[in-house]
């Protein structure tokens, strides 16, 4: 050697990663080489010495990481006779991008995909058996798979701390066994981390199971509390990508107050996002309830003031649209804190994207969201979705995008709100092909509709004996209904039982044996029969009743279960002193 050689590229790579992750100074003293050093030394490090290498690291890098990587450094230096390319591959593998806060399945998939790529082999498979159950991941099939055989060309046991596993490789050139051992160790440590992470999440989830199920999941699904307002048709649905996600959709006000909706998306995933989401929803509801003159703009501004520090603490934010529905004026006023997409289609016009004028909640101490009013008369449609729709990718990685979203809204704009929403979900799913749903998907549709007049209306005294008048009353209502030809005996039987169950509930639980009356209105057209049932009993939502366990016969809970089974839509709302329940049956 005429001059001192520099460290191998693989060593450089690892040390650079240390420096990126907190190390300030590194000195490596390898057998037979002058010392290599990086960064200015403060002289306060403790050297780690092995037979082949002395490592001195100063700065904020965990000792376990140093110890682990040092073994790799020794191996790299020992692999003097290995081809330069093999070292380079190893170094590349050392830079696995497997974050610490992902679940086992994601870690496994990411690991096998990167290994297959780096090693240039046909297939890499990992099987593990751990405390969180058996898992398997196989690298995505390469475009050209020259080796179709299932026979593994190399296998290694994974040295897991928390279970057992194997790494199998199919195809490719022979791989240096020492490199393979190093890869197996590297993969094992990433998997161990993800097991620990998954268990900690599972523990937190268990502790919060009841609260989360109540506060997060039930509120993510606004089906039961969709308000009914004359002249508007409203539908909302949220389809979470994971058990607990970041999208929310909620309705507020309504009891003698204007009706508001809020749709938003908390950045991030998992439990922190879910907790912030429910806090955000609670804050928005609180603003609607207690601001003397609630406007969407004021609600967003105040909610941001309340939530700003919470979001800043955890480095998250939330986009949100708040809307106030005005049935008198057939309009909606909106303020938008960074949320997209919001699509508005005026009757006879092409749909347009309404860009947010404000910043998301939690980003700045002010959001700049401003009220704007849109007409929602007959034929006008407002769609507030979440980016889980337009950002859904197909198997080639292409996004659904705004263009397809607008085209879908245009094609469906004449349909009922429910069909517009379902149609959007279907279009996105069809576009994705087999690809997994990337993110939460939420759609709220508000349509301006004609103020319909019922085809039949009746009053009943709120007592059980008076309910005996229902069959006769139903016969009359059906005889006058535009869709009577499509109402078969089976549908009639179902309608009778569903209405009867609702009425019985109002008498027994709502009025609770006090005097009162119940109003029944039948409406709809040839495609559906709509039954509106109103009473002035205490606020009581029968649809909140828990579903019965059908595997064990019981004495409570069948009534509302039957109503849901027999009807296509069931909605409850409270307006002033009136409970309003709407049943819809498609014909």
């Amino acid at each position, binding site marked *: 050697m005429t001059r001192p050689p520099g460290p191998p590229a693989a060593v450089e790579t690892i040390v650079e990663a240390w420096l990126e992750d907190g190390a300030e100074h590194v000195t490596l003293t390898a057998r037979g080489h002058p010392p290599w050093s990086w960064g200015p030394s403060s002289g306060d490090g403790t050297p780690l010495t092995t037979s082949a290498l002395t490592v001195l690291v100063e700065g904020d890098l965990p000792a376990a990481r140093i110890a682990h990587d040092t073994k790799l450094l020794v191996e790299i230096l020992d692999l003097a006779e290995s081809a330069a390319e093999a070292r380079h591959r190893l170094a590349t593998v050392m830079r696995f991008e497997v974050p610490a806060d992902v679940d086992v399945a994601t870690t496994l998939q990411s690991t096998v995909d990167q290994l297959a790529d780096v090693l240039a082999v046909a297939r890499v498979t990992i099987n593990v058996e751990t405390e969180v159950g058996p898992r398997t991941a196989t690298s995505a099939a390469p475009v050209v798979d020259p080796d179709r055989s299932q026979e593994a060309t190399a296998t290694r046991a994974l040295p897991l701390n928390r279970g057992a596993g194997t790494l199998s490789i199919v195809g490719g050139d022979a791989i240096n066994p020492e490199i393979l051992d190093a890869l197996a160790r590297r993969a094992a440590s990433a998997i161990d981390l993800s097991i620990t992470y998954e268990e900690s999440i599972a523990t937190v989830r268990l502790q919060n199971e009841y609260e989360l199920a109540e506060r997060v999941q039930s509120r993510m699904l606004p089906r039961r509390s969709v308000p009914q307002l004359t002249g508007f048709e409203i539908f909302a649905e949220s389809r979470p990508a994971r058990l607990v996600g970041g999208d929310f959709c909620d309705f507020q006000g309504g009891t003698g107050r204007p009706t508001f909706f809020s749709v938003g998306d908390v950045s991030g995933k998992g439990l922190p996002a879910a907790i912030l989401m429910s806090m955000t929803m609670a804050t928005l509801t609180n603003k609607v309830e207690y601001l003397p003159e609630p406007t969407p703009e004021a609600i967003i501004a105040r909610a941001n003031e309340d939530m700003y520090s919470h979001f800043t603490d955890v480095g998250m934010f939330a986009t949100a649209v708040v809307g106030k529905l005005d049935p008198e004026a057939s309009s909606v006023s909106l303020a938008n804190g960074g949320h997209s997409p919001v699509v508005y289609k005026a009757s006879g016009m092409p749909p347009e994207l309404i860009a947010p004028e404000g910043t998301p909640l939690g980003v700045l101490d002010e959001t700049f969201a401003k009220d704007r009013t849109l007409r929602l008369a007959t034929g006008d449609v407002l769609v507030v979705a979440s980016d889980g729709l337009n950002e859904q990718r197909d198997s080639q990685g292409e996004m659904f995008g705004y263009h397809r979203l607008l085209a879908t809204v245009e094609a469906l704009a004449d349909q009922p709100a429910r069909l517009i929403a379902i149609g959007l979900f279907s279009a996105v799913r069809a576009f994705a092909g087999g690809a997994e749903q990337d993110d939460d998907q939420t759609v709220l549709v508000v349509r301006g509709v004609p103020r319909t007049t019922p085809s039949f209306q009746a009053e009943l005294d709120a007592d*059980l*004996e008076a*309910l*005996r008048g229902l*069959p006769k009353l139903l016969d009359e209502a059906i005889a006058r209904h535009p869709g009577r030809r499509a109402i078969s005996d089976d549908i009639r*039987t179902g309608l*009778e*039982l569903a209405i*009867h*169950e609702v009425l*019985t509930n109002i*008498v*027994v639980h709502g009025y609770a044996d006090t005097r009162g009356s119940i109003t029944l209105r039948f409406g709809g057209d040839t495609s559906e029969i709509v039954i509106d049932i109103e009473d002035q009993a205490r606020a009581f939502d029968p649809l909140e009743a828990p579903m*019965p366990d*059908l*595997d064990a*016969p*019981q*004495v*409570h809970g*069948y*009534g509302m*279960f*039957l109503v849901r*089974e*027999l009807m296509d839509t069931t909605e409850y709302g409270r307006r002033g002193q009136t409970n309003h329940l709407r049943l819809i049956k498609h014909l």
Partner: protein
Amino acid sequence: MTIAVAAFATWSEERLRRTMATPTEEHGMEYVTAIDDGIEILSPSGRFDAFAAPQIAEELARIQAASDRLVVDLSAVPFIDSTGLATLVRAMKHAREQNASFVLCGLVEPVRIIFELTRLDRAFDIADDCASALATLRQ
């Protein structure tokens, strides 16, 4: 089989007699009871709803206190609601606790559909017709 048919004939006769003897209209639901060879038969007729349920529940409790073999004949019940179902579930559970027999029979189509929707058709002992219900209980 002949025994069963004979039993059913006796029962029908008894039922007719009792119906004529005790027309009950003021309670919201008519019913007749009969005893056939130690087997109690309750035959309500009309809508088995929340209005009728307390009275039927009372009658069921009375019979169950006296007998460990009970058939509820629903052939004259065109409509049952969730309160009616709950009344029968209570009686069925009581029978199980007492190791007593409790058989439903004569379900008309709309009523059978409700039992199927709630999966209670699997929980109850339901005979296709009342004659075979009686025959089974006699064995």
